[in-house]
């Protein structure tokens, strides 16, 4: 057990280090912006006093290194500073420094919860579906069923998310008005209502990730079918279904768990386009909107959150694949 704990501790340390360096990359990238935020907010006719006031408000008069550590220290505590879009307004009204500003954390928190809800609905549909399809495709490999599923999944992997989204809108919202095509989610909504509004975006994400997971499940199982113990199970007279479910699947679990975790990581980023299509009030839409109006603190914070989620899930995939390796779990 000692070796496993050591490897996992190493991976965790590496993950934290990666996150730290990623935060430096994000911060440096944002600091490559031309000119000064204060000047660009106020425009050309700004008085030097106003520019200096905004610079002081936003802490832009400090050195980049101290600003970075301020930002990072705040980010760790969940404080991402205040949004420029609101800062702009507050300075014009001449309020005191820092009062009337909406914090980025306040803006992000509810949207982050919405995004997690969307991603988990998608995952709850996608994971069982893709495992079932993968097992079936492995069971009936090289049959017509396998080929049809193969072509269908390959097509849905390679289509852009917005194509799948609009096809789903066309079929389930416009031609047959069963589900709403806009996901206007607000606080205090009942759960079934919320689920109904989330279902179409979640289905789009499901289509995107199911294909990949299903293909990997099929490949992982088929790789094992040449092993001697599968041959043995077959010769014992077990049914093909039983051979796969009892003998192949448990041993194929490591790569499958790995690919599931990687696809959940993909869900986090795939959410951006889907949220824009369905006007879903999640963090992806906030990110795109902030990119367009260059609200830098929000962009920075969203980017860091996305990167953190991505690194965390990749780390989970790593650790799970270590844990599911019997040679590491039971060292001699």
């Amino acid at each position, binding site marked *: 057990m000692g070796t496993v704990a050591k490897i996992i501790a190493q991976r965790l340390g590496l993950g934290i280090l990666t996150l730290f360096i990623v935060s430096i990359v994000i911060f440096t990238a944002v600091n490559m912006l031309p000119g000064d935020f204060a000047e660009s907010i106020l425009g050309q006719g700004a008085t030097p006093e106003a520019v200096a006031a905004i610079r002081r408000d936003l802490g832009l008069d400090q050195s980049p290194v101290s600003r970075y550590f301020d930002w990072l220290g705040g980010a760790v505590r969940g404080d991402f500073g205040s949004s420029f879009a609101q800062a702009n307004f507050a300075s014009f009204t001449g309020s005191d420094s820092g009062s009337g500003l909406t914090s980025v954390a306040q803006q992000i928190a509810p949207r982050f919860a919405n995004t997690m809800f969307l991603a988990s609905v998608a995952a709850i549909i996608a994971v069982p579906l893709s495992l079932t399809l993968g097992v079936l495709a492995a069971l009936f490999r090289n049959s017509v069923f396998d080929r049809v599923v193969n072509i269908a999944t390959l*097509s849905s992997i390679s289509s852009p998310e917005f194509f799948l989204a609009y096809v789903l809108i066309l079929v389930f919202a416009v*031609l047959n008005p069963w589900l709403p095509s806009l996901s206007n989610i607000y606080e205090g909504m009942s759960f079934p209502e919320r689920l109904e509004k989330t279902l179409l975006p979640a289905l789009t994400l499901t289509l995107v990730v199911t294909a990949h997971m299903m293909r990997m499940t099929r490949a992982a199982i088929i790789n094992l079918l040449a092993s001697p113990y599968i041959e043995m199970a077959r010769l014992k007279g077990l049914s093909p279904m039983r051979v796969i479910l009892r003998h192949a699947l448990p041993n194929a679990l490591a790569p499958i768990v790995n690919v599931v975790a990687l696809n959940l990581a993909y869900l986090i980023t795939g959410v951006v386009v889907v949220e824009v299509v369905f006007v879903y009030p999640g963090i992806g839409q906030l990110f795109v909107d902030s*990119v367009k109006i260059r609200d830098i603190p929000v962009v920075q914070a*969203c980017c860091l959150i996305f990167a953190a989620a991505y690194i965390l899930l990749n780390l989970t995939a790593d650790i799970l694949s270590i844990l599911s390796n019997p040679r590491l779990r039971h060292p001699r």
Partner: protein
Amino acid sequence: MILAYLLIGFLGLLFLGWALRAAGRGLIGSPYFRDMGLSVAFGYMLAVALVALLAWGYWLSRFAPPEIAPRYFFLRIAIEGLVLFALAGWLFRALGRTLGTAGSRKVFRAMPVTAAFGILVILLYAIVAIFAPLLAPYGQDQVLATANVVPGGDPALGGNPDFPLGTDQIGRDILSRLIFGAQNTVGFAFVTTCLAFLLGGTLGFLAAVLGGWLDQLLSRFVDVLMAIPSLIFALLLMAIASAWAGSERWLLTLYMVVIIAVIDSTRVYRLSRAVGQNIVVMDYIEAAKLRGEGLGYLIFKEILPNAYAPLLAEFGLRFCFVFLTIAALSFLGVGIQPPLADWGTMVRDLAAFINYAAFAPQAASPPLLAAGAIALLTVAVNFVVDWMLYSSSGLKE
């Protein structure tokens, strides 16, 4: 309510499957039916039911009264498109099997229909992209007198035979924009992929050959860049690039090409380094080094020819990825900039028309055409890559 229908349908199909198997055992008595599991019989019945449903929908789309028929318009297009595509792929393969040299005939003989279809589509896109100015009836940013012409060219439905696919909100011809979109979207994606391969491939091979601190430095740097989700990173950098570009829109498009090329070159670097490292330990590399060959000779004459197959497959996949990223960025409004026509922007601009699908299906088709044009190419490339990987891996079970 829906659940009840589903349950009834499921049980009905299960019973039909059981009946089919029993009938097969009684009437034909072949071992195939004797060994058939109930799940397989159910599968056959499910397939029959699905085909019957599709056939019924197709029949409705052609012969139903005009109040209902528009609702099945897209089903009809999908079915006709699928059959046409399969037929085209099959014909292309048949053509390839009879024409050409012995070598090319052999390649076509072992090819699945999907791969033949993929090659055909890629060829068509290449032709359209190269000859776009000759094929397009109007310019890509030419604003014509009539806006919002419905596709289909039928004056009774609000169409105009001069504009077979109609015009958009400000009166640009959609067909011309689709054709020019092939040139812009596919062209930029191709250039970006080439750039990514040039950068990532060179650095990857260099790291593999030289090793040491250069390899460590580059690899750790690439690890960090790969830890950031690529679309998110691209959006972040595009926000900064748009500040640099200011009102120069062509400059922003240029920045986009560079940004995506750099982000994607990390993946190319990984692969070419891994492939290169396997080749570097070979004896013939040792021999070349002893001969005193230079670095350039080693990379271009010894490693590159041997890394050709995996890199080519990767090129296809990378191209798809870059193409989808560019389309997504354009769809989000920060990619290829107007006046250049491109498919992602077209989908975003025309998306609202989808809401007319229930009563005026022709009017709703332009956004789906643009999105479908993207999907068709990526699907085609993936079909070809899938076949290449399958035939080179030698997996047969």
